[in-house]
């Protein structure tokens, strides 16, 4: 082809949508009127109608038209872009017309179907088409970029969640770096012997998995190590570690994704006046009991004697923390069951507020334990002085009882250092101080920073099953995004900051939900990382000096629409 596209040539194609548009909008009037409008006087414009552009014939027709006419810009006036934007983008792609030089106009849902007066509907459709045509001339080609990725993954935390993540992901083409701050793998599960009955036959699950991790050649383990810094984005994070013992810089490497599996700790019962206890008293926290079972194989008093009566108190710190830890009811039942096996004559008093049994097998277990004679008392209030329990059964008067041993179920809270890690990653914590998901329902194991994941009890109170599923879920998401040997294509409708206009106030940095904006100290300007930006345009809306262009939604483009909308 000898003719080079020097000036613009715009194609405007109006879909009749059968009778849907054709009956309610006078398409011929549009075709007759458009070319006479002032803005098209110096431009080449082709306006045509077609019975159904989204049909196979319609798409072919459009394709041929684009090719034959060598359009530089295309406007399709039809239904909602939510229905067929993708259809026409694909037509553009086939014909080598950059899809960002095309615009769809919704004259069905927004004109034909909602305005009974045909003349008015036609006027509005003309307004829309003019707006789109003016806009499309201000649109610029956007080219998708392909970025290389590193399929490797950094896992922080060597508990069950971290281990499960590492084992799920490590393979021939994917390295996993497993970082643990203590001197051994296993986390809290090292303190456990008994799991729930529904998790039966898996008492040595953690030992087995630790062995597997150690044997796996694709997993590198760093003990007594913590994360020093992580800079980058999905596919490309630069990692530096730090040796905790000697406070020396550790290994440096690149990964494509990071999984935080930093776990939980129990809330400090010493801070709760009603549960004050000393190490000398026969009051134990749940983890102390787990540990005792693992160490001694039984639940005993300090004297070594088995208790004859045990009081168990649920929801310790629940009100103060503001959430239910969801696994305590279950493990309390596990303790009761253990005590019942240990002694036929054991007297159990279980003080609970709500029985939280959200798994399908849980209630059966509860009933089994209850039927064996444990006394479950629903309370509105409870207080202990050593092993003397004062409680108020719901709707009744205060009572008291002495037991040999008290077991507390303190609320789970995020492990020490969670806040610092969140700051390092620049990801938010939820109201309850656990990590916050990018979207609680739709993206539950990823943070607002794409490529940084959260699994296990740092994500929220979780038992072993839930933690393992979350670990597998994060692995699943990573496996779909970081495919060894494949590149990733980030969003192109992103923001960019014009250096010359930016005054470095960093307003945009503060409001970006995705941490896509950084500050360049040398030039004293903000910079958008296009690999992270999702293109909402909030930064452009916030910039006091108008230095930010939201690509494909620039002020110039929107201005054209405004002018036509109110012409």
């Amino acid at each position, binding site marked *: 082809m000898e003719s080079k596209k020097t000036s613009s040539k715009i194609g405007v194609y109006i879909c009749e949508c059968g009778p849907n548009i054709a009956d309610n909008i006078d398409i011929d009037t549009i075709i007759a009127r458009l070319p006479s409008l002032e803005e098209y006087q110096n431009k080449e414009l082709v306006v045509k109608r077609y019975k159904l552009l989204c049909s196979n014939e319609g798409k072919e027709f459009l394709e041929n038209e684009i090719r034959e006419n060598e359009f530089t810009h295309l406007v399709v006036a039809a239904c909602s872009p939510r229905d067929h934007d993708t259809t026409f983008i694909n037509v553009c792609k086939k014909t080598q017309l950059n899809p960002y030089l095309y615009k769809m106009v919704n004259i069905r849902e927004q004109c034909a179907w909602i305005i009974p007066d045909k003349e008015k509907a036609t006027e509005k459709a003309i307004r829309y088409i003019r707006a789109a045509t003016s806009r499309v001339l201000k649109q610029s080609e956007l080219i998708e970029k392909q970025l290389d990725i590193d399929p490797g993954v950094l896992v922080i935390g060597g508990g069950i969640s971290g281990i499960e993540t590492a084992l799920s992901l490590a393979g021939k083409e994917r390295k996993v770096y497993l970082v643990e701050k203590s001197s051994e793998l296993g986390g809290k599960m090292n303190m456990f012997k008994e799991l729930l009955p529904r998790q039966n036959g898996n008492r040595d699950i953690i030992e087995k998995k630790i062995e597997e991790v150690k044997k796996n050649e694709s997993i590198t383990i760093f003990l007594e190590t913590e994360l020093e810094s992580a800079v980058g984005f999905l596919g490309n994070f630069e990692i530096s570690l730090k040796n905790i013992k000697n406070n020396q810089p550790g290994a440096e490497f690149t990964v494509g994704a990071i999984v935080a599996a930093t776990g939980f700790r129990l809330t400090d019962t010493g801070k709760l006046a009603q549960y004050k206890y000393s190490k000398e008293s026969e009051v134990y926290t749940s983890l102390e009991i787990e540990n005792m079972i693992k160490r001694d194989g039984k639940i005993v008093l300090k004297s070594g004697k088995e208790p004859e009566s045990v009081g168990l108190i649920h929801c310790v710190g629940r009100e103060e923390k503001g959430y239910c830890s969801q696994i305590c009811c279950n493990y309390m039942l596990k303790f009761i069951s253990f005590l019942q096996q240990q002694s036929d004559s054991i007297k159990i008093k279980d003080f609970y507020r709500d029985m939280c049994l959200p798994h399908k097998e849980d209630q059966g277990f509860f009933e089994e334990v209850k039927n064996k004679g444990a006394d479950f008392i629903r309370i509105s209030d409870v207080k202990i002085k050593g092993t003397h329990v004062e409680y108020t059964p719901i709707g009744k008067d205060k009572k008291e009882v002495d037991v040999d041993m008290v077991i507390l179920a303190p609320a789970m809270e995020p492990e020490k250092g969670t806040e610092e890690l969140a700051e390092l990653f620049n990801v938010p914590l939820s109201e309850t101080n656990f990590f916050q998901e990018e979207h609680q329902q739709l993206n539950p194991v990823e943070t607002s920073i794409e490529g940084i994941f959260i699994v296990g009890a740092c994500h929220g109170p979780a038992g072993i099953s839930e933690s*393992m599923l979350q670990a597998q879920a994060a692995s699943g*998401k990573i496996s779909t995004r970081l495919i060894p040997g494949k590149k990733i294509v980030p969003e192109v409708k992103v923001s960019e900051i014009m250096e010359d206009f930016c005054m470095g106030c960093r307003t945009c940095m503060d409001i970006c939900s995705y941490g896509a904006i950084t500050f360049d100290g040398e030039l004293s300007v903000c910079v958008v990382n296009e690999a992270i930006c999702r293109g909402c345009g909030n930064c452009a809306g916030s910039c006091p000096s108008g230095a930010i262009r939201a690509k494909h939604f620039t002020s110039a483009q929107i201005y054209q629409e405004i002018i036509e909308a109110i012409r």
Partner: protein
Amino acid sequence: MNSKDKILVIGAGIAGMEASLLLANAGRSVLLVEKLSLTGGNTIKNEDSFPNLECSTCMIAPIQQDILQNPNIEVMTLSTVKKVEGEAGNFNVTIDKKARYVSLVDCIGCGMCYEPCPVTLKNEWEENLSEKKAIYVPCEGSLPNVPAIDPEHCLQLNGKKSCNACVEACMFGAIDLSEKDEEVQVDVGAVIVATGFDMFDAGKISNLGYGKFPGVYTSMEFERLFASNGPTSGELVLRGGGESPRSIAIIHCVGRKELGYCSGVCCMDSFKYSHFLKNKLPDAKVYNIYSDICLPNKTYQIFYNKIKGEGGGFIFQSSPEDIEIKESSGKLGVNLTDRNGAAESLDVDMVILACAIVPGKESENLAESLGIELDGKGFFLTRKEDVGTVETSKAGIFVVGCAEGPKDIQNSVIQAEAAVGKAILIGEINGK
């Protein structure tokens, strides 16, 4: 694409859609089979979903659009899996594909065919709270936005009368009444079961008066009644009477004792209803009648506290199945036992029964076709050797979402993502 790289996903609810989309975006070919004529599952029936009260349509519709437009996903509606043979990496699947009678390609969703149809039916999808024609979409905003024809009630198709009204009304030649049900054979490498759940039949607890008194609603009925694209466009009016309720009792745990498990989501749903009611009918009295408050997520208690702050009454009742609902002079009397064991009675206009989640009706047949087990309650069973898994006793078959047991959206999506990981990583780790 090699057939064993293809993955079959059964059920186009939130879990199935999430799994399909992730797989497709990773370049895998997906066949998504859905028994109904639309995608979205149970989630799309909700106006808002807890705890953030995010509009479900806003949340889900973009996913539904993606599913329908993604070149790697084939969506097969009105279809069920009949037989599965073979093993991981090489399953041969037989699918019963019911005729839709309307072309997904040619129909543009204008809706011109509904009015001429002479047959009016109860709309089951809307919990029978509205009517539809024999050619229908279940609700406004259904995706795909293409109607289907009910062959049992269409006069032409059931042979009662010669009728061609919809065909004549369609300007696109999209309706073909001669379309036949098909049996489709597909080879796939793995199967993800995401068939979701049904609701406990509240009629089974006769003293709750469901089906007897029009003022007694199930939770799903209330969801639709409240939905802005539902039978009343979201106006809260009582069945028949057309008036708004002034006092409402929400009864939690309906079916829990009979079924032997807690569904883990009904408390939050009930609080959501409580909030909806307080918002729309500020003067209405709302009572939550509960036994255990189950809030298994870090943010759920925050929601609960907010609802308590809105002033709904909370009444403890140890056994909801003992509640007796009676009707006298247009009011519903909710007779319960209060904390001290004394009898108490509430007069209300409306009762909402927060029904338990039960296994989908087709689970048993499907389990048999797939050669996998159900648990004692009728949900799909995951591999017994594992503590937390989506794998079943048969390699290459995974189960996610409420098909595995009652759970919220978050946990359904987590399982979907986990299954996707298993399906992809098994190949990757083996160095394929």
